[in-house]
């Protein structure tokens, strides 16, 4: 059975519809339970939502543009050519490949899939998959604009690199490629025939103008793909700030363990693109522990609903489970440890 893109649609729509219904439901209940009149609340809510949207959307556009350019102009051979031969160093450099190829968590899966077909070692691909959504110039600038230069920015990049390299090394030591990847993604790795080329043709370099036009069109498509997650996420964050009382938020956000679990769940559910999640995190920074904000900014880009669905197209189910559980536990433990032992 070949993977048909339309097969996934019902499941996605179901999730999207659930999220939208949840937003509306929360809004209605909350508006009714606050003392102020609905017009004032709506005005404040709208200002907060548009604030996040206006600040975040340029980064989303730049991200989709970069992703479109990569699709149009970079062939996977360009990436594998510069990789060190030593597996350990290759894994480490896998964590930094995103600086040359800025992709968010949605753009990274197709790139990784094609890299595997070009013979990229499986564990390097996994490190790249987990690290690239954060370890890239667009996210560097967006996190810098949101939080300035400080512990959040440094923590985000260090924790992401550590977790991604660690998970990559776990796979390097403990798994064989054919146990990790779905059959159609492994053929070249396991010495398969040229049949795979029918599915994933080698990418010839495009002429400049055609490539540019394709890149811009892809950027437009991808904006609609990713924009909806940004908008639903921003609606929820703005609703939370406007409608949930400060005491409730502090009660959730001050616990060193609870706060981490809450924001990790939120990061997974919201599925907001890594190029812009820093602006959503701002909404929590006032009330939630610094460790939990870090968990939101490190775990979310590695794993969320949207990327899990995409993982299933490349990796075997058991691998997908590991790809969720390992980053979840590692970012959780690091964040809780930071909350308990480091005075922010």
């Amino acid at each position: 059975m070949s993977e048909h893109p339309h097969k996934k649609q019902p499941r996605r729509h179901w999730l999207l519809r659930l999220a939208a219904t949840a937003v509306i439901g929360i809004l209605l209940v909350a508006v009714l339970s606050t003392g102020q009149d609905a017009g004032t609340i709506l005005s404040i809510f709208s200002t907060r939502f548009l604030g996040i949207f206006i600040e975040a959307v340029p980064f989303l556009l730049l991200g989709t543009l970069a992703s479109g350019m990569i699709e149009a102009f970079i062939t996977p051979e360009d990436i594998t050519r510069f990789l060190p031969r030593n597996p350990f160093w290759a894994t480490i450099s896998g964590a930094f490949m995103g600086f040359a190829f800025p992709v968010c968590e949605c753009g990274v899966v197709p790139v990784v899939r094609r890299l595997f077909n070009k013979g990229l070692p499986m564990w390097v691909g996994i490190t790249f998959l987990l690290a690239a959504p954060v370890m890239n110039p667009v996210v560097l600038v967006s996190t810098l604009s949101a939080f300035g230069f400080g512990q959040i920015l440094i923590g985000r990049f260090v924790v992401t690199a550590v977790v991604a390299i660690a998970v990559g090394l776990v796979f390097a030591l403990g798994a064989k490629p054919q146990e990790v990847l779905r059959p159609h993604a492994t053929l070249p790795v396991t010495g398969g025939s040229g049949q795979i080329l029918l599915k994933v043709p080698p990418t010839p370099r495009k002429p400049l103008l055609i490539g540019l036009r394709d890149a811009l069109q892809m950027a437009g498509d991808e904006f609609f793909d990713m924009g909806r997650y940004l908008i639903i996420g921003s609606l929820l964050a703005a609703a939370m700030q406007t409608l949930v009382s400060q005491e409730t938020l502090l009660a959730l956000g001050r616990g060193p363990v609870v706060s981490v679990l809450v924001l990790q769940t939120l990061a997974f559910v919201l599925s907001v693109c890594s190029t812009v999640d820093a602006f959503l995190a701002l909404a929590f920074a006032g009330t939630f522990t610094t460790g939990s904000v870090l968990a939101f900014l490190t775990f979310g880009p590695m794993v969320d609903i949207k990327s899990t669905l995409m993982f299933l197209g490349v990796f075997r189910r058991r691998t997908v489970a590991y790809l969720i559980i390992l980053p979840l536990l590692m970012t959780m433990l690091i964040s809780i440890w930071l909350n308990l032992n480091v005075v922010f």
Partner: protein
Amino acid sequence: MQAVEHDHTHHDHDKEHAQAWAKALLLLGLGLYFVYNIITGNLANYVNARFGWLSYVAAGLFLLLGAISVGVLLRGPDDHDHHHDHDHAPLTWGVLAIISVPLVLGTLIPSRPLGAAAVEGNISLNSSVSTSSITTFTGDPLTWNVLDWLRAFNQSDDLGSFNGREADVVGFVYREITFPDDQFMVARFTISCCVADSSAIGLPVVFADATDFPADTWVQVHGTFQIGEFRGDTVPLLYADTIEVIDQPEHPYLYP
């Protein structure tokens, strides 16, 4: 089987065409919305002016992407089908509706900065948000804003030293039920990135006819400080000589 599939794709084609137009118009609409925000200065209601240039980028890119989508549509049926590897969900009316939310909220609800109603009791009398930088105060104290004064109070060991100092500040009127009739706070929101990280600060003002000024009125308060009791703390209170109602300033927020 073949016939059914053909019929299906034919039916889909009309829908896809309509959706492609909706998508192109949405991109153009978002671009125009950013241009509108830039021209009217509404941008200052949402983000720190330091990041204004990002909105120019967004406006340009939206218009460019929109123009390309329109161009592709006008050139007629697909001359190239882009089967790139991205796992795109096909466009649906639901997705289009979600993407239009910012446009709907931005055009239907009048653009206003956060005001007194958004404070909800979380107003700070000290500038703890921004004490990380030790500011050296230069310039005429009469040009200091609310944030400058709170910073000065924060860095001072002796609040009594502010007795008799003259001040002239701008802010909106904020009141809680517990405030006496002759008091309100002249308040501002500070934002470092966008309104998501906003926090309210304010100076207590004492004025005999304070009730003349309803909440959310923008005022320019001139007066002198005198140490006094406010919400259980001993802080400098601004005894006003004159309070003037003014227009909302061009930059409603202060940037720490």
